[in-house]
């Protein structure tokens, strides 16, 4: 099978109709490089043409059919043979026959469902791509073009703060608070740590962002933890009554939205890990999940200046915002409120 479109005699290119106006987004490839791909959202139409260029204009190309497919698939690295396709659309472009001159075939996949965001991770990859195939007796000519899909959400209706008292009895009691439980990718984590009891010798405190990628099901579940960020928030020994502020800008880090049980194949979740380190290098930590979501970049054009300011102050949702974007915005699944703990939660200690 020749995968690069450069078959013996024909060059295949896939071109999008809106290539000029469509935005491109950076996405990491499997080997860590960053490349730009055309950006699509759920429900958008994918249309363009497949152009065939005969290398030798005198030689005709015999084929068993030409088609174009739009595929969304999940690939688990430990099981490369099996691709799980969750979107698979096909359009026939030509019946079996002959190509005697270079030509282009138009195609349109209308209002394609793209339920999940593109993701390239440590053990799993979710990608969307167009694949043009010229079937032939001995070997097909195939050309693929990857695209990137982003899933957008709106400001959640319920976004309570996370506030908890944790510690080790009679040694260390702290109360930590994060202003929200759901953050968008360019958001700021505003919080504080309040020391109620300090009977250990603390040297410094940091907050880490941990990404956990979970693949597999049942007994074969595998978690891959990756510390995306380490951010020192305190240097020195605190005493009782001290309040340490947290202000962590998420835009500086490589983050994706939280992805829960995608097609029952994998999940990507994020945790804030508050770590206190004492003078003997002992680490005391408390991990807390936060939900990350992607906010659309589209500017609100038709709102009056006053209304714009009012909506900025009001951190809750406005259905007006969703309509402005004109994009389907999925509902938040499984709303749970972060409960205010009334009893002392456990702070883990690792020596």
């Amino acid at each position, binding site marked *: 099978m020749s995968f690069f479109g450069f078959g013996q005699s024909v060059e295949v290119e896939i071109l999008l109709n809106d290539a000029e106006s469509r935005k491109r987004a950076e996405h990491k490839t499997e080997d860590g490089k960053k490349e730009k791909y055309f950006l699509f959202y759920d429900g958008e139409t994918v249309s363009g043409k497949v152009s065939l260029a005969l290398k030798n204009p005198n030689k005709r190309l015999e084929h068993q059919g030409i088609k174009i497919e739009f595929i969304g698939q999940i690939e688990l690295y430990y099981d490369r043979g099996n691709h799980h396709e969750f979107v698979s659309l096909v359009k026939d472009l030509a019946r079996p026959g002959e190509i005697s001159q270079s030509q282009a075939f138009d195609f349109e996949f209308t209002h394609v469902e793209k339920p999940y965001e593109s993701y390239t991770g440590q053990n799993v990859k979710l990608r969307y791509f167009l694949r043009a195939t010229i079937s032939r007796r001995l070997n097909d000519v195939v050309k693929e073009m990857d695209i990137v899909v982003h899933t957008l959400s709106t400001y959640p209706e319920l976004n309570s703060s996370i506030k908890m008292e944790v510690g080790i009895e009679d040694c260390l009691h702290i109360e930590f608070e994060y202003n929200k439980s759901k953050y968008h990718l360019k958001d*700021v984590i*505003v919080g*504080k740590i309040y020391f109620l009891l300090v009977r*250990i010798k603390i040297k410094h405190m940091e907050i880490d962002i941990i990404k956990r990628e979970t693949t597999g099901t049942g007994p074969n579940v595998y978690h891959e933890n990756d510390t995306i960020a380490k951010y020192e928030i305190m240097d020195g020994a605190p*005493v009782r*009554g*001290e*309040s340490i*502020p947290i202000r962590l800008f998420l835009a500086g880090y490589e983050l994706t939205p939280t992805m829960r049980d995608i097609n029952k194949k994998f999940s990507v979740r994020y945790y804030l890990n508050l770590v206190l380190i004492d003078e003997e290098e002992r680490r005391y930590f408390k991990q807390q999940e936060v939900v990350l979501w992607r906010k659309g970049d589209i500017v609100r054009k038709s709102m009056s200046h006053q209304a714009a300011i009012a*909506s900025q102050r009001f951190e809750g949702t406005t259905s007006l915002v969703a309509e402005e974007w004109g994009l389907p915005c999925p509902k938040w699944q499984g709303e749970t409120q972060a409960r205010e703990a009334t009893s002392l939660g456990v702070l883990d200690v690792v020596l």
Partner: protein
Amino acid sequence: MSDTAVADTRRLNSKPQDLTDAYGPPSNFLEIDIFNPQTVGVGRARFTTYEVRMRTNLPIFKLKESCVRRRYSDFEWLKNELERDSKIVVPPLPGKALKRQLPFRGDEGIFEESFIEERRQGLEQFINKIAGHPLAQNERCLHMFLQEEAIDRNYVPGKLATHPLA
């Protein structure tokens, strides 16, 4: 992006700190010194003891000041007790120096001044690391080691009674 500007400048409400808390003595004072090594006994029955002096204001320790004499094997006993009963990773002790105990050495062996000083430093590091660990502070063997005159090897191992939160 100006809606994030509102979040940036916002601060969460925090209680103002009591000045007595801010400028008062810290509640985590714990210092253990190991000093004054003395070799007791004669001939082959000699051994070295070290003074273990502790000063603290942690309420978990019954005495705010204590001073006891301990030998190397007592430290070994403490390490074994903690390794068996507590879940912590116990730091290493300075070496046993078996080679120094063989006969026909040119020097004083384990009673050599430089060796005793080396061992003293290692024991000091060891005990300070242990005594500050919240889980070790729960073990009766640690309190017996630091604050009781003699170590009762036939004691009943266990945790200190934990106080329920009010």
